[in-house]
Structures are given as structure tokens and as C-alpha cells.
């Protein structure tokens, strides 16, 4: 089988190939360090938000709460995750398809992403784009913000193109072989990402001319629909990045294997197909969208749970199989046997624990009329902190402790601190997220700088939860400081290892069945994904366009 995926032993070192690999490593390392820096800034803002909502501080007018909230949301949801994932997938493809390659396209993508981020950051920090990360019209940010966000997305398309070209080269060069599993997961996810980001690019096609003053009004309902067409698959983009690490990297920490090559590919194909036709579950409470269309998306959203069930099974099966081969049996013994002192394992594994709760919460949110009780309350904030802030971020950070030494050839600085860091994050995020969920059940609204409402009766019960959320947020922020100390310490201390440590990918299980070739026909699956997205959205978009003749003028209300 080809799913290897340590580099083949090189009897005769090929200096050109070595140089090519080093160039690729530098590109990926730059992605990872960019993501690290962004995470640090975002976490600081997050902590201050917690203090503000708990009425411990009041943000000054020159850097008000909503400006900070916009920065936090954009940096964490759109920038940190995207830089990490594009870096990770570049790593997956470059390492499993070793060849002499140009990294020009990869760097072009990175630079455009960085330029876009810088433009959006300037707009947010100078106060001309306090529109939060959802930028709902008719709140009108400066054109710089919309251009920046667009460039960020277009940059990821260039990265995707680079990866697709590499995979296409592989298929041409070795037509008899399967696409290596990590490269398959990367390609599958990037195809899903392109299908999804078409929505936000279409939205930008409406917002940019409007923000430049070329059009006088905006169809608010339509921009919301375009946003959420992109907004939910965005979540799956994060999750597929985390799953890639769970399937392919986590087993290497205990000499485990990929449980099933075929089922892993099937899960990713299902995620590609089902991530997009689900976005209306974010718009259950929107006027102008019939309840029937919303119910359709409830059903498709339940469908996208299935590949997550498959993943849960595969991951626990991987644990158990490896433990049995080491002669360990019984639930408690297997749990004890796992390498809880290795942050590359502990980060993702603690993330998996959080995801059990995140997944349950997600099913509640998707439950149609039940969403009325939690929509736009702190419950939702708790939900996405226990998902993107839990399994996704912890997995990425854990993987970074393996990636940084593998890419830089440096010894990890303060590995004990790295271990403490992942557990601290787990504790802080649990406290914060539980408090947020609880506040949400009591009705506390999200996206509000202060929930005291002049001492109103109903609001009094929210304050203790906000205090707990601030406590949890502070612990997470401390944890981020530890991560940054380890990441920058590794760089600054610059202790070279004799042999470059490898963040290898797990081999296939020896029992694994042969994989149907049709799963690798990614072009075909991309076509099906687009057809499903069109089917799910043709009705509601037509409804928006037909029933709605009115445009809203833009406003700056901050």
C-alpha cells in the first residue's frame, strides 16, 4: 500500500530533493508561526472580553468592546484556523508526495493571505470595521475590510491550486498507486473549502461595490444566506483539519495504525458532500425563509453527523487495536496505557473529549424549533468555544508540538511546559464553556459588552456565569502564553537535533481492507458536492430574490 508515509529511506541523498523539501518545510513553518502569533493576539482580546462582560473592566472608547470582539472573531475563526490548516495540508501533500517542486505558488498563496489579513486588521483596529466576524449588512465597514477578507480567501485558493497540482502530478507519475491518505484528506478538504467559499466570494461581489458607494442599497437577506452558505462549511473546514490529525498523526504517538483506509476516505468524501447543503440551520430564526427550507437543512445537517460517528469509531478502534497488540486489555487499562504525557497525543485526545459534548450541543442547536431557546444566547458562544476552541484548537496546538521540531530540526523548548499547556487549556476551556452554556440557558444574549441591562430583574442571574467565564478565559489565555513561550523558545534557543525528528503519518492497519478506486475520483465528488449545494439552496435563494424587492442603505452604527 502507498499510504505511507514516512519518506522512503534514501540510500543516496539527493541534494536537489533535500533542498526542495527544506523549502517546503520553511513554507509550512511560516504558516504555523503565523497562526501562533494570531492565536496570541486573539486570546488576549478574548480574555479582555471576558473581563468586560463580567463587569470587571470597561473598555476605553479608543479600543471599544465591539472593535475588540470583531478582532477576536476574525483572528480566531478566520485567520488562525485558516493559516494553520493551509500549512498542515501543504505539509500533508508535500511530505507524502516527495518530489522536486517549486514552492512559488505556495508562497504566493501565503503572501496573499497575509496581505488580506493585514488589510482587514488595519480596518478593524482603526475602528472602521466594527462589524464582527459575520459582517452582517447593512452594517457597512470600510472597503479595506471586505477587500482584505476577499484576499484572504483568494490566497487559500492559490494554496489549494498548488496542492491540487501536486496531487495531479502524483496521479500522472504513478497512475497505479492510490493518492496517499494524508494528501487525499488535504485535497478533499480543500475542494470542500472552495465549494464553500464561493458563497462568501459571491457575498463580497455584493458588498464591495456597495461599500465603495457604487450601489446604494444591499439585499440583507441574500447576503445573510450567502454568508451562512459559507459559515457552516467553515466549521467543517476546521473539523476536517482536526480529523486529518486524528486519523493520520495521533496514532503515531503510540505506534498505532490507521484503522481503515477505505472508511477514512469514505468519511472525508461524505464530509465533502454534506458540509455545504446545511447552512440554513444558522438561520432558523430568520424572517423571509420558509420553515420548509429550514427543515430540509435540519435533515441534511443530521446527515453530516454520520462521518463524525465513523470517525469516533475509527479513533477508538485505533486506540484499542494498538493497546491489544501491546498486550493491554480492558477499558481502564487501555486509557491508562495511552501516552498522556506526550502533548502531541494529549492535545488532540483532550480535544476529542470536549468534542463529545460539543457534538451533543450541536445536535441540540440543529433541532429546529428547539433552537429558539438558544439562538444568539451565550449557549452558542459556549458551543463554538467547546468545538473550535476545544477539539480544533487543542488538536492544532498538540500537532504544532510535533510539527515545529519536524519542520525546523530544532528541539522543542520546555516540553514539560507544552504538556502543562494542553491540560491548562482543557481546564480553562471547560470552565469557560460550561459557564457560557449555562448563561445561555438562562437567556443571556451573546455579542453584548454588558449584560446587566441597568439592573433589570431577568438579567441578574447572568452575572455569576459571566464571572466564571472570565475565570476560564483567563486560564485559557495563560495557556496560550505557555504555547507561545514553547513555540518562540524553540525558535530562539535554536537547539538543533542530530537527526531531524519526524512527524510521520500513521501506517495502515494490517487488517485494513482494500479501498474502492471510486473514492479517489475527487473531481467527480466535487461535481456531486456542487449539485447538492445547488439543490439545497436553489429554493431559498429564489424565495429571497422573488419576495424581496427592497434594498437597505448601508450604515455605520458604531
Amino acid at each position, binding site marked *: 500500500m502507498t499510504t505511507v508515509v514516512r519518506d522512503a529511506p534514501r540510500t543516496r541523498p539527493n541534494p536537489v530533493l533535500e533542498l526542495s523539501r527544506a523549502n517546503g518545510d520553511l513554507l509550512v513553518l511560516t504558516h504555523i508561526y503565523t497562526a501562533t502569533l494570531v492565536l496570541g493576539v486573539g486570546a488576549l482580546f478574548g480574555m479582555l472580553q471576558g473581563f468586560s462582560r463580567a463587569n470587571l473592566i470597561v473598555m476605553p472608547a479608543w479600543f*471599544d468592546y465591539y472593535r475588540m*470582539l470583531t478582532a477576536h472573531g476574525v483572528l480566531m475563526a478566520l485567520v488562525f484556523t485558516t493559516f494553520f490548516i493551509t500549512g498542515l495540508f501543504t505539509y500533508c501533500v508535500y511530505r507524502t508526495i516527495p518530489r522536486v517542486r517549486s514552492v512559488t505558488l505556495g508562497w504566493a498563496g501565503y503572501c496573499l493571505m497575509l496581505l488580506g489579513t493585514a488589510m482587514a486588521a488595519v480596518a478593524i483596529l482603526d475602528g472602521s470595521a466594527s462589524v464582527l466576524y459575520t459582517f*452582517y*449588512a447593512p452594517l457597512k465597514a470600510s472597503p479595506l475590510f471586505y477587500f482584505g477578507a476577499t484576499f484572504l480567501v483568494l490566497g487559500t485558493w492559490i494554496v489549494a491550486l498548488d496542492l491540487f497540482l501536486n496531487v495531479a502530478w502524483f496521479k500522472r507519475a504513478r497512475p497505479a498507486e492510490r493518492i496517499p491518505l494524508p494528501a487525499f484528506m488535504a485535497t478533499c478538504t480543500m475542494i470542500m473549502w472552495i465549494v464553500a467559499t464561493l458563497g462568501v466570494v459571491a457575498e463580497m461581489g455584493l458588498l464591495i461595490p456597495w461599500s465603495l458607494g457604487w450601489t446604494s442599497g444591499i*439585499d*440583507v*437577506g441574500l447576503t*445573510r444566506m450567502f454568508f451562512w452558505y459559507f459559515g457552516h462549511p467553515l466549521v467543517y473546514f476546521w473539523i476536517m483539519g482536526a480529523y486529518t490529525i486524528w486519523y493520520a498523526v495521533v496514532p503515531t504517538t503510540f505506534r498505532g495504525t490507521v484503522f481503515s483506509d477505505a*472508511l477514512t476516505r469514505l468519511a472525508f468524501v461524505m464530509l465533502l458532500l454534506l458540509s455545504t447543503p446545511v447552512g440554513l440551520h444558522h438561520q*432558523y*430564526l*430568520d*424572517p*423571509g*425563509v*420558509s*420553515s420548509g427550507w*429550514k*427543515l430540509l437543512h*435540519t435533515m441534511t445537517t*443530521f446527515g453530516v*453527523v*454520520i462521518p463524525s*460517528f*465513523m470517525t469516533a*469509531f475509527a479513533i477508538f478502534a485505533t486506540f484499542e487495536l494498538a493497546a491489544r497488540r501491546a498486550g493491554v486489555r480492558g477499558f481502564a487499562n487501555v486509557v491508562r496505557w495511552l501516552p498522556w504525557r506526550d502533548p502531541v497525543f494529549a492535545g488532540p485526545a483532550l480535544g476529542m473529549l470536549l468534542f463529545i459534548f460539543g457534538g451533543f450541543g450541536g*445536535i441540540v442547536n440543529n*433541532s*429546529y*424549533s428547539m*433552537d*429558539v*431557546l438558544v*439562538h*444568539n*444566547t451565550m449557549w452558542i458562544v459556549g458551543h463554538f468555544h467547546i468545538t473550535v476552541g476545544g477539539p480544533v484548537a487543542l488538536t492544532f496546538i498538540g500537532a504544532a508540538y510535533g510539527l515545529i521540531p519536524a519542520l525546523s530540526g530544532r528541539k522543542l523548548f520546555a516540553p514539560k511546559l507544552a504538556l502543562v499547556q494542553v491540560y491548562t487549556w482543557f481546564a480553562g476551556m471547560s470552565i469557560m464553556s460550561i459557564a457560557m452554556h449555562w448563561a445561555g440557558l*438562562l*437567556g*443571556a*444574549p451573546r*455579542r*453584548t*459588552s454588558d*449584560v446587566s*441591562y*441597568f439592573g433589570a*430583574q*431577568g438579567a441578574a442571574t447572568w452575572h455569576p456565569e459571566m464571572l466564571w467565564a472570565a475565570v476560564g478565559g483567563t486560564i485559557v489565555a495563560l495557556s496560550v502564553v505557555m504555547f507561545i513561550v514553547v513555540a518562540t523558545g524553540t525558535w530562539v534557543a535554536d537547539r538543533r537535533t542530530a537527526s531531524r525528528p519526524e512527524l510521520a503519518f500513521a501506517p495502515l492497519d494490517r487488517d485494513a*481492507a482494500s479501498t*474502492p478506486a471510486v473514492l479517489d475520483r475527487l473531481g467527480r465528488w466535487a461535481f456531486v458536492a456542487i449539485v447538492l449545494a445547488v439543490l439545497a439552496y436553489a429554493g431559498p435563494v429564489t*424565495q429571497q430574490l422573488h*419576495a*424581496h*424587492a*427592497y*434594498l*437597505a*442603505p448601508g450604515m455605520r*452604527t*458604531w
Partner: protein
Amino acid sequence: MAIHVHRQERLWLTAGLAILVVFAAVITTSAIVDGFVPPSRVQSIDPTKVAQTPPFDHPGLRRVAPGAYEAYYVARIFSFTPAEIRVPAGSRVTFYVTSADVEHGFSIPETGVNTMVTPGWVSGVSHRFAKPGTYLLVCNEYCGAGHQLMAAKVVVTP
């Protein structure tokens, strides 16, 4: 070329799928039989002419039958009009809300009243207020610098 699926995995996936089917069936049944659907009114309005468009030119409470009210609200940065309504306990109130400027939210915590308020559309949501008390009505979608101040009251008298 079938994919080999382990027996335990088949059991696990079957159980998972069964749970999802039960969820879907419960949701669909309660939607069709009991009418438990999220607020999904489809009625457009010119957001630049809200103040001139009846009934939103005179927002407020109307009694339509004994124990049944309609309340017309305009959401505008950073307040709701009317700022306060009073109804006797046991009343069913249907809220119709629209925005004269940006996206707002309309939520009465710990009740089923929760809807987005989108410029260009009229939202509708109905609730029976069984218990007397002063209910806080808040905007739960970010609308600008004074968003945290945007609130109103629903007073339910004994």
C-alpha cells in the same frame, strides 16, 4: 468492491443512524402536527419607509380578541418602540417586528420569543404569557455601539 466494515462498527453506525432517524422523526412530527416551527414569516417591507408603512407607522399593542393581542414593534438603534407593553396573565401575544435600520434581534429570555429582525422583512412570533411579572426584552444581535442598551419591557399583570 465493497468496503469491509467491522461487525462492531456496523452496530455502532446502525445505532447512531437510528438515533438520528428518531430525532428527525420527532422534529418533523412536532413541526407538522403541533406546529412547532421556528419563526419563519415571509413578508417584505421597504426598510427606508417603515415609519410611513401601516401598521408600523403606529407601533404598539392591539387587542384582537379576549386574551389575544397583536404587538407591532419597530427596532431602531438602540431601542424598541413601544418600550413597554402591558397585558394580563394568560394572554397570547403575537409580535410583529421590523427594523428601520440594521439587523437586530428580538428576544424575551426564558420564553419562546426569539427571532431575528432583518431590514426588509417583518418577523412574527407568538407566545402565551402564563406567569405575571416584568419580562426583559433584549436585542440579541449586534447592531452597533449602543447594542448593550437596546432593551424593552413586557409587563404581565396578574
